[in-house]
């Protein structure tokens, strides 16, 4: 079974690959904001890509913008949402 740490790493890899970021997985902190100052510097188009990628790679469907805003705060919040939607994944 996949540990929380492994899941966070997969989420980071998904972010880097899908958004073609010029940073490595190791450079992204778990609680680092994805948007806004001090964060990864993502924008709304990146968010659109992440919403699609989360559904494609993790089966996590973000039903509306409010939920997406909550989930797409950091790698940590994304990993939490993935775990909560997947009963097969240990918490």
């Amino acid at each position, binding site marked *: 079974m996949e540990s929380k740490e492994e899941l966070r790493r997969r989420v980071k890899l998904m972010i880097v690959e899908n958004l073609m970021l010029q940073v490595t997985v190791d450079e992204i902190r778990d609680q680092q904001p994805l948007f806004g100052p001090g964060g990864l510097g993502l924008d709304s*188009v990146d968010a*659109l*890509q992440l919403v*699609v*990628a989360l*559904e*494609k790679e993790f089966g996590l469907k973000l039903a509306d913008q409010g939920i997406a805003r909550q989930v797409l705060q950091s790698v940590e919040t994304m990993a939490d949402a993935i775990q909560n939607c997947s009963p097969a994944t240990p918490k």
Partner: protein
Amino acid sequence: MNPRIILITGANGGLGQAIARAFFRESADNSVWLGVRGHREAAEKLASEHPGRCEVAALDVTQPTEWRDLVSRIVGQHQRLDVLVNNAGYHADSLLAQMTPEDWRGVLAANLDGTFHGCQSVLPAMVSQRHGRIVNIASLSALAAPPGQTNYAAAKAGVIALTQSLAKEVARIGITVNAICPGFIETGILHALGAEARKALLARIPMRRTGRPEEVAAAVCFLACPDAGYITGSTLKVDGGVL
């Protein structure tokens, strides 16, 4: 060219039919879905001429749920959707003073809302593929609005603005969005013109002839082809030099 999956709306009309035929000619491996509302005889006939490569689907472009269902069906079947041509639309001309709210709303819904719903429906698939081509059919009326078309001209101008804005949003994801403004094209509307009206019309066209649907279709195919990958947010006139 790799085989592509193409969805064309308004495929029962002369222009939609010509666009579909152009994609059939482009590659024997292309699969074309024809979205039609109401009468579907012409689309069914076209599909029967291209067995295994063409499907006809009921689609009211003003209904987001119908869009979602159709795109889901296409992606479920092909695992991708490469090209969307938003061609469906109609006009209901009258002077603004006499225009009914129904004609205003109906024309805006079919031409502008329909384009919005179409683009929104295909985006998840195209974003996931990191590739896509959207071609929106606008009109010369959007660029030089004639009297009697406040609704249609406003809707088509909206299509051009939507095209430009969306193109910027999705450019870095590998999706291009462009618009085409056909001029006076030989479709059912022009066939109904009398001799005098046709003569007056031709006098306005520098090429002194009307356009053929195939000439608009060629422009659609060009904007949708891989070689047009650096063109986005553009509006291409196919009008014989009118503007």
